């Protein structure tokens, strides 16, 4: 017999019974539809225990890596104990602000030190909570082994969190972190697969983590990093990335602006046109797209039509904060480095 732990209780499974059928039989409501491993409505995550390979068929590599599986096609081996994790059980971790530093006219680099283990993959996002509960989501620009967490916060007129971080917050102040979340991260493997990273504005933050993660993992194929901004002053970390590219011949860094004169090494024009010119046939590549939703949706479609498989396109659309957070659940789902 195998059994599964769900919300602090153990449920036995009949032989050959799926996790979904077992939970439904015992009165646990689990969202589901096709019961055939196709629609993915019954996606769940295992906190511990071995997930059968078949239960992850068709899932993105990023989901597999985080132990997600489909409950309807999960028939654990006899004797298996599987513990399920729910999104609601994500922990908040205490942290302290370490430094705030301007990277450009309107981008603030915020470094934080977590005071409890906070596991994340470079490129994911987290929710930053101020002591009074004000919450905003930001992409993580640092690598897990760097010790401190790095966020790129766009300074907006009237931005509650960004304004506070810029003018009032002091190093040492206590905050809390929730998450991480997001599927826009590098999974080691297939080092011969070219990577295409594209982002606008502070959409560079997750890409800055992903590109360094891929290089550290020994990715040998060409890595293209496109960073777009409206005007030259919107670009940041230009020197750091040029320096990184000079040390890694397979990294091609392409900063660009929509408006402005052709300058040293900065292209002028829309991001999609620049990508098409430099990477005309990205068949079989892996892509990471970050920025405002219009850009992400449009690039995703264009790259898909140019030959990338949807499974190989990892995207993170930054949603603007238009109203005060109604609850932590609502804000944690939106990745946003723009507020």
């Amino acid at each position, binding site marked *: 017999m195998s059994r599964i732990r769900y919300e602090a209780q153990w449920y036995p499974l009949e032989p050959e019974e799926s996790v979904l059928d077992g939970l439904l039989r015992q009165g646990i409501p689990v969202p589901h539809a*096709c019961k*055939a491993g*196709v629609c993915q409505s019954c996606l769940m995550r295992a906190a511990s225990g071995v997930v059968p390979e078949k239960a992850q068929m*068709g899932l993105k590599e990023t989901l597999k890596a985080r132990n997600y599986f489909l409950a309807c096609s999960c028939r654990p081996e006899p004797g298996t104990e599987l513990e399920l994790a729910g999104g609601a059980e994500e922990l908040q971790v205490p942290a302290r602000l370490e430094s705030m530093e301007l990277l450009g006219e309107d981008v603030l680099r915020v470094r934080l030190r977590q005071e409890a283990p906070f596991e994340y993959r470079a490129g994911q996002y987290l929710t930053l909570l101020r002591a009074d509960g004000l919450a905003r989501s930001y992409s993580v620009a640092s690598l897990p082994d760097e010790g401190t967490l790095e966020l790129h916060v766009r300074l907006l007129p009237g931005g509650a969190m960004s304004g506070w971080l810029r003018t009032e917050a002091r190093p040492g102040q206590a905050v809390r972190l929730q998450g991480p979340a997001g599927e826009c991260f590098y999974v080691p493997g297939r080092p011969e697969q070219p990577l295409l990273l594209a982002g606008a504005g502070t959409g560079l933050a997750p890409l800055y983590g992903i590109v360094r993660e891929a290089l550290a993992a020994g990715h040998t194929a060409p890595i293209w990093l496109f960073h777009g901004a409206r005007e030259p002053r919107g670009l940041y970390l230009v020197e750091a990335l040029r320096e990184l590219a000079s040390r890694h011949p397979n990294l091609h860094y392409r900063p660009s602006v929509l408006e402005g004169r052709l300058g040293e090494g900065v292209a002028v024009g829309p991001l999609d046109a620049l990508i098409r010119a430099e990477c005309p046939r990205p068949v079989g590549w892996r892509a990471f797209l970050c920025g405002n939703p219009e850009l992400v949706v449009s690039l995703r479609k264009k790259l898909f*039509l140019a030959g990338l498989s*949807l499974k190989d396109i990892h995207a993170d659309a930054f949603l603007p904060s238009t109203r005060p957070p109604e609850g932590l659940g609502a804000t944690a789902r939106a990745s946003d480095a723009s507020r």
Partner: protein
Amino acid sequence: MGQEAHVSSVFEQIGGAKAMDAAVDLFYRRVLTDDRISHFFEGVDMERQSAKQKAFLTMVCGGPNSYTGADMRKGHAHLVQRGLNDLHFDAVAEHLGGTLEELGVARPLIEQVLQAAESMRADVLNR
């Protein structure tokens, strides 16, 4: 593989779920670039749409699924309101055949799949 006693579905014969993964990208790309029907796909979530198309391909190939005629009706009602008709259905069927051809599926099997799709015409068009 030895001779099967039962008649296996097209789904099994062309390689099961893995083949569906390959098919869905090709199929979706064809549909999105066809001006006759691409406007029906404007503004939809590509990942969700791709999952639906995989379910559709799985179904017409005789693979495991739980779709019913009623699901098909409900799922397309809003598109029928926007003018979905036989010409659009034919275009999608054309891409279905083309996708399977591109994957090297034998003609008799393709015919089987197209028949399965044809059997859904009335439900899809809410007639």
